[in-house]
């Protein structure tokens, strides 16, 4: 038994207790629910030598690479969706100088399969993929196995078991029973694969509300180590039903990340220069305009 009350803590405490130098860190969320609040706190606490893994590194890992937190990146699509490049990442790969970065690259299916294996505590996951591609030559960890039933050669990817996974969600109770709606990505698999789990939520709710709609629970409290309440913690990413994506910032990142001086200035102003998420949000007047419109669902009868 864990003491429920002790799981609810500040972002500063959660990162300080559960994210260590040298860890493999996953901040998941496919476009939706990317926890920038946690990424910023990791930058502020100056964690180093991290292996950062997620399907789409997105702006948050570009910022963490730019801030010098990462030793290695594990990924499957490293771009700024709908805009262009992640320039801190590109600089580190194209002209490794001051900030060398090791990379380990898969496809989306490969990364999903790695988390599935990790969550099931299997050593690898088979998939029908990669024939005819150059990816296995670029990444020798993509291998193959002969099926013992059909004789077919299948590709395999190794399990990914992060030291810590951070998941942003709409709501959880104090024990970390976490509900997500909208795009759910691979958050469930990543959380189950991980040694430690931090859940960051828009709202802390009563256990009774969770129990009223158990099908919406994606992560059970029994695998959660910390619950952080951080409204708008995903901005400039979005939270369905709470706020829309700040597409203007995603566009602006192209020019910011292209210039290391501007990137450093951004980090100084919006990450190092603020003590916490509340102070960050005071510098984001646009956020109010992103508030989600109401599209409520009909609800179901769980009775018997």
């Amino acid at each position: 038994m864990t003491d429920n009350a002790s799981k609810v803590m500040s972002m500063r405490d959660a990162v300080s207790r559960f994210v260590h130098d040298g860890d493999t860190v996953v901040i998941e969320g496919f476009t939706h629910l990317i926890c920038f609040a946690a990424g910023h706190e990791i930058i502020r606490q100056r964690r180093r030598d991290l292996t950062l893994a997620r399907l789409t590194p997105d702006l948050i890992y570009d910022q963490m690479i730019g801030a010098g937190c990462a030793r290695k990146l594990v990924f499957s699509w490293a771009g700024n969706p709908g805009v262009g490049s992640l320039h801190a990442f590109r600089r580190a790969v194209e002209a490794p100088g001051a900030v060398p970065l090791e990379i380990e690259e898969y496809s989306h299916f490969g990364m999903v399969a790695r988390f599935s294996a990790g969550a099931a505590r299997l050593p690898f996951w088979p998939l029908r993929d990669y024939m005819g591609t150059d990816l296995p030559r670029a990444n020798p960890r993509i291998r193959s196995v002969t099926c013992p039933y059909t004789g077919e050669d299948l590709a395999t990817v190794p399990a990914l078991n992060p030291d810590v996974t951070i998941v942003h969600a709409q709501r959880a109770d104090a024990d970390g029973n976490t509900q997500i709606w909208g795009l759910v990505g691979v958050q469930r698999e990543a959380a189950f694969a991980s040694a430690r789990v931090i859940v960051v939520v828009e709202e802390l709710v009563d256990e009774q509300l969770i129990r009223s709609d158990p099908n919406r629970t994606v992560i059970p409290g029994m695998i959660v180590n910390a619950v952080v309440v951080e409204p708008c913690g995903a901005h400039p990413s979005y939270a369905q039903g709470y706020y829309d994506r700040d597409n203007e910032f995603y566009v602006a990142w192209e020019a910011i990340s292209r210039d290391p001086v501007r990137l450093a200035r951004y980090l100084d102003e919006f990450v190092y220069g603020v003590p916490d998420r509340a102070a960050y949000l005071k510098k984001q007047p646009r956020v109010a305009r992103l508030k989600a419109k109401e599209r409520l669902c009909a609800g179901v009868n769980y009775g018997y």
Partner: protein
Amino acid sequence: MMAVVAARELQDGEVVFVGIGLPNLACNLARATHAPHLVLIYESGAVGAVPERLPVSIGDPALVTGSLMVCGMADVFQCILQNGRIEVGFLGGAQVDRYGNINTTVIGPYVRPKVRLPGSGGAAEIAIHAQRTLIVAKLGPRAFPEQVDFVTSPGLRPQGRPRREVRMPGAGPVKVITDKGILEADEATGEMVLAALYPGVSVPDVQAGIGWALRCRPGLAAVPPPTAHELRLLRDVLDPKRLFLKQ
């Protein structure tokens, strides 16, 4: 023009795996014209999406609202794509070669590349599993080399062999929709050959943007220009902010 041609390739009721950018626009144009029952599936997990605004990314919240199903990505790749449920996949890329191989990974060598591109995302497995794929790319000698620098998404002759021999479930790229004409896969050789020209375009215009000696189908088809209705939908309804309609 590319969006219009791509939209016309889709048949009503088909299950389409939709990529970012122009394919997104094409699918939504098809849905607004001849294919209202198109089933749009996005790798982010939205199935049967009916976006009320043009999605900026494939993870846009507008894909969720009103969709038939939202599932996790493990389900998308295992229960839908690897299961063989995708009829059409759209792919684009920085480089497309003679056999329809696509490169979205690196220009130059893999280690210390000249240009680091985003990588596969779901493209490699879409190229392998979709029953057929449509490639959408603008012509240019650097965009259409004889051989891509890196095969991210395999075309019609993986490891020099027909796809069936390496147990690839899908038929692969059947067409390449460019900004000047349409290339089609030659069944015997697996090579991309010129099949149709847009209004006002000549064969040398297309060859100028292709890095190998392009063969032509006998009797090249002429692609009809966009109708006033298609243009109005694209410019006024689907992409009024010109997010993807740059040319």
